[in-house]
């Protein structure tokens, strides 16, 4: 690991100021992604700003304003605390399931909301500094494009980068229309809709998200919804636990009689950002909640898929996973 200066910090403002002055400084939250990448020599900050002790921890019900009854999560709440918070388990069980699908108990005890959002891709070419990678070193090419790309994207990729976002938590958050609250260098706070937080690679794969320099994630808000009784997070991976998703589906439904009033479908492991299957949602809206319609919706969701050499299986897998996640959700989200 390269030498760096360790800076503690007393406030979000102070942390932003360091980022503003030193473009090579990075925020340190749980460290589970950043330290790993620094050991690999992929990340090379010369200063770490330890924000882990800032007072950005509180899972709570929002009272007042348009989002009354919604949920607010602090940027530094540990993944374990968020997943197990009674409000989350009761009202947003999809989020609990998605968080618990990721990593291990030890890592979830360390990992934070902000770190989870800003974790980087697990593309092996990104991790291996001997390989070309536009995300790590713009202009060097994409090692995965003509390499082994079994784990890579089927939606929204460009020839510059075919990586996927690795988070499970974020798939639930995009399905639940979360809002990311970020604070800038001048202290102003802005709201970014979750679906607009992460980016597609385009010709700037080095940029994972739309944070401006020096901006810090301070909280996530989830609007109130009626999905708690019918939601499910399905994760498909190479081993039963402690592995990143090959593909995952977050499904949530609100029904009236046997008709679908509202539905949300989001996918992980398929794109550079948490992927909302909007066409499938539109198709299902107002229809009867049965397997036949779910299958048709899944076909719709996959129409735009552009698989690569080694990940063609993700198209059929994606269809089946969508159907199964929706069926499980209708079954009360129980396993």
């Amino acid at each position, binding site marked *: *690991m390269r*030498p*760096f*200066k*360790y800076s503690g910090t007393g406030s979000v403002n102070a942390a932003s100021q360091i980022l503003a002055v030193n473009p090579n400084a990075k925020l*340190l939250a*749980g*460290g*589970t992604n950043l*330290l*790993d990448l620094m*050991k*690999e020599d992929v990340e090379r900050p010369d200063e*770490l700003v*330890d924000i*882990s002790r800032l007072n950005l921890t509180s899972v709570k019900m929002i009272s007042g304003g348009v989002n009354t009854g919604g949920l607010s999560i602090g940027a530094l709440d540990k993944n*374990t605390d968020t*997943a*197990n918070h*009674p409000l989350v*388990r*009761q009202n947003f*069980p999809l989020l*609990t*399931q998605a968080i*618990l*699908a990721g*990593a*291990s*108990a*030890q*890592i979830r*005890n*360390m990992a934070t909301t902000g770190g989870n959002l800003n974790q980087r891709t697990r593309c092996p070419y990104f991790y291996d500094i001997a390989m070309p990678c536009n995300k790590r070193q713009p202009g060097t090419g994409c090692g995965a494009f003509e390499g082994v790309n079994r784990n890579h994207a089927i939606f929204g990729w460009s020839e510059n980068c075919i990586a996927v976002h690795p988070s499970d938590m974020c798939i639930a958050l995009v399905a639940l229309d979360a809002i990311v609250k970020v604070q800038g260098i001048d202290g102003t706070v802005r709201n970014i809709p979750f679906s607009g937080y992460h980016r597609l690679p385009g010709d700037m794969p080095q940029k994972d998200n739309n944070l401006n320099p020096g901006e810090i994630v301070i909280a996530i808000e989830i609007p109130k919804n009626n999905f*708690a009784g019918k939601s499910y997070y399905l*994760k498909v991976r190479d081993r*039963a*636990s*402690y592995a990143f998703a090959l593909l995952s589906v977050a499904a949530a439904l609100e029904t009236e009689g046997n008709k679908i009033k509202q539905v949300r479908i989001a996918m992980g492991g398929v794109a550079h950002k948490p992927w909302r299957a909007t066409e499938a949602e539109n198709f299902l809206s107002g229809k009867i909640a049965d397997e036949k319609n779910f299958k048709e919706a899944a076909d719709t969701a996959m129409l735009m898929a552009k698989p690569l050499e080694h990940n063609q299986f993700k198209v059929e897998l994606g269809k089946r996973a969508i159907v199964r996640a929706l069926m499980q959700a209708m079954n*009360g*989200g*129980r*396993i």
Partner: protein
Amino acid sequence: MQEESLFPDLTNDEKKLIEDFLSEDVNELSDFGAKRREFLKQVSTVAGAMFAYQLMGGQEVFAHSFNQTTGDEINHANIENGITVAFKVNGLQKTLEVDPRMTLLDALREKLLLTGSKKGCDHGQCGACTVIADGRRILSCLTLTATCEGKSIVTIEGISKNGQLHPVQAAFIKHDGFQCGYCTPGQICSAIALMNEAKNGEVSFVTADVRVKARPLQLSDEEIRERMSGNICRCGAYPNIIAAIREVHSGKNVAELWKFAGENNQTQFKSSV
């Protein structure tokens, strides 16, 4: 001393340490069914003896004796960007001056000579470095020492009390929850924390319905497997690890999946060859 010949390669000091330890803990050993003599038969290699010794929390003694020979007083003045961190390790207050790059795992092993916590992968992928920080299991290989100011860390060396094995340690021995033992300190720390999590009613990815509130939780084997998935065992001792955890978690006796080959079994074996 009949046992003495079992440790031909040890120095007299090391022999004495093991002697002292074994004579103190005969009772505990017989608690889980192995008499001292039988136990020693099994532990007939130096590596095995050292390992058993380590498992039983005797490492601090070794650490202290090492301290005297390696010289604890390293001159820290030249550490680039060095910072001073004060935190508790196994109940004892420690103050270290460290390079900010130093992980907690390296500080424990290299600075405090607590080598029970193991470096398996150094990248968060195996759990061998698991320790308990402020009551929660974490990975010491992905924790910077610099971030530990004021924290209280418990390692495998700190879980036995007054020479008594922690029940999870005893259960791992009873159930043979290891082979090479490299993953074991992490497994045991992880298992201890797991039981607290279950007491607090924390759910997992395989919990049937996360909306149902229940505490304490009684964990099925499937639940234990999922909750222990952050600890990889290259030797594949998983069934025995699960049996050990189930026994302590449920408070009910669980039958061993193995037993020592006694005289009878040996004759049987010989006659069948």
